[in-house]
């Protein structure tokens, strides 16, 4: 078997709340070589060859794989974490087993851009995040040099839905959205 074990190492509440949790897990080895095949199979996935990350969604869960680590969001309880780990391991092993019949796809599909993110920000240019404008903050979010938690206005109730969408976009890019 290509991958023999994925072990759960960290569980914490999701930033979007709702009683949901996210987890980190470690794989028994890095799976960079399977990513182009996963990218070919999972059409909605986001593969970034330079960063060696592969991110995709299953329902509301965002799964990010990088080196020998993976994260997954929006889970209900530990049992669901383990169910997801089993599923991901099956997807990886199954894809690897069938790799001779899959044409690897090495390119990155279209990613969310700064304008899309900007539209979801408060657009007040309050500068609390340390950037001169919300547009500048959006650009830094795309680059991964700013994090979503730095926008204090977004934490207000009226932006809850926008926050969730922004978080989903950024997690799909493989970025953390909160403070370490």
């Amino acid at each position, binding site marked *: 078997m290509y991958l023999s074990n994925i072990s*759960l*190492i*960290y569980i914490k509440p999701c930033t979007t709340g709702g009683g949901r949790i996210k987890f980190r897990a470690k794989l028994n080895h890095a799976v960079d070589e399977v990513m182009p095949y996963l990218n070919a199979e999972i059409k909605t996935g986001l593969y970034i060859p330079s960063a060696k990350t592969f991110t995709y969604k299953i329902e509301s869960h965002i799964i990010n794989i990088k080196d020998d680590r993976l994260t997954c969001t929006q889970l*209900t*309880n530990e*049992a669901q974490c383990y169910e997801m780990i089993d599923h991901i391991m099956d997807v990886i092993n199954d894809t690897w087993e069938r790799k001779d019949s899959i044409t690897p796809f090495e390119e990155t599909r279209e990613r969310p851009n700064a304008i899309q993110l900007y539209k979801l920000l408060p657009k007040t240019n309050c500068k609390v995040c340390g950037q001169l404008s919300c547009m500048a903050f959006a650009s830094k979010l795309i680059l991964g040099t700013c994090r979503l938690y730095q926008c204090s206005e977004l934490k207000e109730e009226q932006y809850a839905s926008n926050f969730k969408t922004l978080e989903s976009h950024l997690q799909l890019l493989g970025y953390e959205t909160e403070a370490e």
Partner: protein
Amino acid sequence: MDVYLDNAATTFPKPMIVPEKIYDYIVNNGGTSGRGSYEKAMLADGLVYQTRKSLAKLFNHKDPKTVIFTSSVTESLNLALQGILKPGDHVVTSALEHNAVWRCLKTLERDIAITITVVPATAQGETLINDVAAAIKPETRLIVFTHASNVLGTIQPIGAIGQLAREKGILFLVDAAQSAGVLPIDVQVQCIDLLAFTGHKSLLGPMGTGGLVVNCDADIHPLVSGGTGGDSAYEYQPDYYPNHLEAGTMNVSGIIGLGAALEFLEAEGLENIRAKEDSLMDYALNALKSIPGIELYGPQDSSKTVGVIPFNLEGHAPEEIAFFLDQNCHVMIRSGLHCAPSAHRLIGTIKRGTCRIGIGYFNETTHIDALVDGLQSFIKENN
């Protein structure tokens, strides 16, 4: 040589992998499930999940999250019956139920005014599907049946009852205490909505383990409320599974032991286990028939029963026989009513009780020989 023939009460010995895995967990891990912020606790959680998954596979249940752990099949049955039944509900049950079902039903009858219909059975413990159908009323909420009688061993027509219940939109709860691990159980094919099982009988796991497979979307009120490890700020029991019906620190060591037992069962194969127990049953029935004055109860046919043989010796109290066998021959059998008085009413032994042997996977024909020799010695000394 000690001869253990009380496997219907609890199986002994257990596969060595069971104590080994429990030992390894207690000595080398020790973390609690569902409360961990460190890798070892999450590993423990993973092992608990693997056991849920193995059970789901064994019973052909789709969702491991709705395999609920309890401390015993009694707790599982109480959880299902107390958690579902409401005042005015009608319940159909068999004439063979263990007190784990019967006392629970009688208590609900007294306390919240449910009504109960008992389906008649033959003296061999056989139930006809038409009698089950005839017992159903418009207000019937649930049918609860033992899969196999713990007194007579008789296997009940679970698949046919499941189908009937499904057609009528009635919940079907099965007590698999005597069958899980030895008879095939398929909650989907047999239309079982709720399956209550124990870990320490034919599943070959440790005591203190049991569970309820929830194969329906019935609203089940939790039997206990308390910590689940997550959503702690919420003031009630969460509505998602398994946490909805599990509170408090879990029996992780026991569940890991049960997981190990399930590995053993899968490797041995259920059909091989059943075949060995059937051949021992045939051997035992044949040998027991040669004992003068023996009264055998139940179908006396291994294809119709699990590995249970109830008997009496004419003119002797069952407890005297069991005592003699234990003290003089090191043969352990059960005597009494086996917590199931209604089955004894069927065979006319409600006052006297019976002796009962419970055959397990680790028994051999030499054990049956020791029993037969012991019974012959008893007769020689007491007649």
